[in-house]
């Protein structure tokens, strides 16, 4: 697989496509590229199966966005039919444009989830965790555990379903969920307690340097002040519409202070790293491709907004324009598939 940094860059650059544009052609090209990458990763990583179900979920959501948009947005020129006005929320005209917009919304979401699933299938979560700054380490460990818990829960879920089925359990109503969920939940809790005990016994979070009482007090006051500042800022922003900037500034100051405090706290815990990750030629290639993709998209967004924009509601034409250069650029999403295809390691 790739170096974590290169892989994160790929995630960022690829995710920019669905985040910056809703142009169906570029999205379709991104999906094609990401799908290729997913298929390649799947041959290497055993975890891809699990993330495959996320893709199925994304398809399901997509199917849902179309009627949702069509029935809730009553705008556009091509009226297909109309529902009685007195029906709440869904009453009104149903237009072709709204259906198209629904399709595109789903497409965007699907692209994003596909990229996310591909990223997760190919990433080593523990290595990813090491990228986080020290003060976020605890959060990172929790995430890493959560990720390893998911497959265990799925195995446990299957076991429970089978065990209850042969006791004659049948699904007839919500009450019948209990025999499935209670063992899953309590089993998960039991495992969590076991893991906490094991981490404690192995010295997790044990190497905290002692600091002077003055410093300790300072951190506590700092945390309190930061939280109060953020809260005050939020209130200001909500209630004094005329001077919202002051509110934003307060929130910013509070968050900044909080980060400082956490950073200080993080410095008290000393921790070392074991891995010296190797940076290979294909990591350089991927980094360059990702930078080109991200840079290109940003430039297009800032310099020539019209290239990326598309809206089914636009009065001129329902068919989007296609820029060949941008189309080729989005194909860069598929680069990992090309460089991984050659050697499987």
């Amino acid at each position: 697989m790739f170096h974590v940094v290169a892989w994160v860059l790929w995630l960022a650059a690829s995710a920019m496509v669905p985040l910056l544009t809703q142009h169906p052609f570029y999205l379709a090209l991104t999906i094609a590229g990401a799908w290729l990458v997913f298929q390649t990763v799947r041959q290497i990583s055993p975890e891809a199966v699990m993330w495959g179900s996320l893709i199925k979920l994304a398809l399901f959501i997509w199917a849902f966005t179309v009627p949702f948009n069509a029935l809730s947005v009553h705008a556009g020129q091509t009226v297909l039919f109309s529902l009685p006005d007195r029906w709440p929320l869904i009453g009104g005209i149903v237009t072709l444009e709204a259906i198209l917009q629904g399709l595109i919304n789903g497409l965007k979401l699907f692209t994003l989830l596909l990229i996310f699933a591909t990223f997760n299938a190919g990433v080593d979560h523990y290595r990813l965790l090491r990228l986080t700054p020290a003060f976020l380490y605890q959060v990172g460990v929790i995430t890493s555990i959560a990720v390893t818990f998911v497959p265990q829960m799925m195995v446990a879920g299957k076991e429970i379903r089978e065990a209850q089925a042969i006791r004659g359990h049948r699904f007839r109503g919500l009450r019948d969920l209990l025999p499935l969920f209670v063992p899953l939940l309590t089993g998960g809790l039991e495992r969590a307690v076991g893991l906490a005990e094991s981490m404690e016994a192995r010295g997790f979070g044990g190497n905290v340097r002692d600091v002077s009482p003055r410093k300790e007090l300072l951190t506590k006051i700092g945390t309190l002040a930061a939280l109060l500042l953020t809260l005050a800022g939020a209130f200001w922003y909500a209630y004094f519409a005329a001077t919202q900037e002051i509110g934003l500034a307060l929130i910013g100051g509070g968050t900044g202070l909080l980060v400082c405090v956490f950073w200080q706290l993080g410095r008290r815990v000393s921790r070392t790293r074991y891995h010296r990750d190797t940076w290979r030629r294909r990591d350089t290639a991927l980094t360059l491709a990702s930078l080109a993709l991200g840079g290109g998209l940003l430039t297009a967004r800032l310099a020539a907004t019209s290239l990326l924009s598309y809206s089914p509601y636009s009065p001129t034409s329902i068919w989007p324009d296609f820029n060949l250069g941008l189309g080729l650029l989005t194909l860069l999403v598929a680069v990992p598939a090309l460089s991984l295809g050659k050697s499987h390691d």
Partner: protein
Amino acid sequence: MIELQNITYRYPKSALPVLQDLSLTVEEGEFLLVTGPSGSGKSTLLRCLNGLVPHFYGGQFAGQVRVCGQDPVAAEPRRMSRYVGFVFQDPEAQFVVDAVEDELVFALENHAVPQATMRKRVEEVLDQLDIAHLRSRRVSTLSGGEKQRVAIAAVLTLQPQVLVLDEPTSQLDPQAAEQVLDALVRLNHDLGLTIVLSEHRLERVVQYADRVLYLSGNSQPPLLGEPREVLDQVELTPPLVSLGKALGWQPLPLTLKEARPHARKFERALRSPDQSTNQPTIHPPTPPSSSPSIQLCDVWYAYNGHEALKGVSLDIAPGEFVALMGRNGAGKTTLLKQIVGLLKPKQGQVKVMDLDTRRTDQQALIAHVGYVPQNPGALLFADTVRQELDFTRRSRGMALGGYESLLETLDLNAHAERYPRDLSVGERQRAALAAVLVADPEIILLDEPTRGLDYRQKKALVAFLQREKKRGRTVIMATHDVELVATCADRVILLGDGQVVVDGSTREVMTDSLVFASQVNKLFRDARFLTVKDVLASCRSG
């Protein structure tokens, strides 16, 4: 190295103390085995050594503990991790990271050990536990024995002076347990590592221990001493020791090697009065009198391309007690699931009470078959044991109640109103058994029913199963427990790589095998003797 003085400990919300006025000294380099029935405080005692008791559990703690010159109560478990390595019972629940190598360095990174030292330590533990080939694997793909060895390696990287293991082999099959114990013995001998290990299956470990601490539970004083001394005073022991005690062998043999001279003498004594008894009397499996209750005909099954069953054909008659044996992954559980209809054959046919599982509704099948899965935790969800039983009966459309005698035979009367998940391992197992058997199926399928049970619980289970057999029930159990098979099964089916390797009467199969023979049978290598009872009976008749 370890010194406990007058330890008394009571868990929060519990009326009675688990440990009462316990004192113990362990020398450097000693291998101490802590044993006793479930619930006698073995785990609690071990957790005192690194401060998990009382720090992680709360409760009331009194007494003095010194481990490697530290006081775990004052130092907290995380600081004790440099002195005491702690390995838990369930290999699944102690891994933080999915990659083996990352798991090994987890503790080191947390202790801010320099990178160069880390590399050296990782290489060392990989060699010490003989797991260098696993270094780039994912933990989730390892077998139980491999997982447990990785767990041991992960605590050894901190170079503790004491290694504490809480029933490390109770969830493993015999071969995996053997691997883990071999590794431990090597650490104890070659590095002089002090080891404190709890286990209730004595036949596996007792020969390695320097001393044994027996906690009897019900507020009797613990026994501490050489293995022989302690076993002499304990009622429930491994078959070999029980036999030695019954026949008055001195010194009490702990291993087959020690017992063999006694056995030879015993055989000579037995042979002299009557030569004819020497003829092994092998009874062929009784030919099925009526139509078989289970019929498998050339059954094939595969999971994701991996073939689990390759053309299995079997007939099982009503009232038979069959043991399915074979190493992990041989297809035992798959075969059971085929019979209960959770899996359908890809090819071939499974017929249960003349119902083809492929054409029959699951509900119709489970009217005849009860299946108790390996992990009772998958089953139990209700607030009390009684509700658990009611649930099964209601799901089957049967009348509620009428299971008092079942609770009685399974010794669950006292626990009927308790929360099933608060019960001990053995009680949970029995609660799951009751929850399935309350529907009174004609065929009982059990998957590893004795995993984690102590001698007393095992004895109770055997008695129960024999009673069910007398009632004409067909019992099929998948198990690794040869002693269990020797005491109650009539027929053994040995699976290997998805195929039936041997199928015959228990006596025949056991006498013929080295791995799948009971301790007593290995000792005499005689088809007449499978259990202690057999030997004692021949004694009386001879």
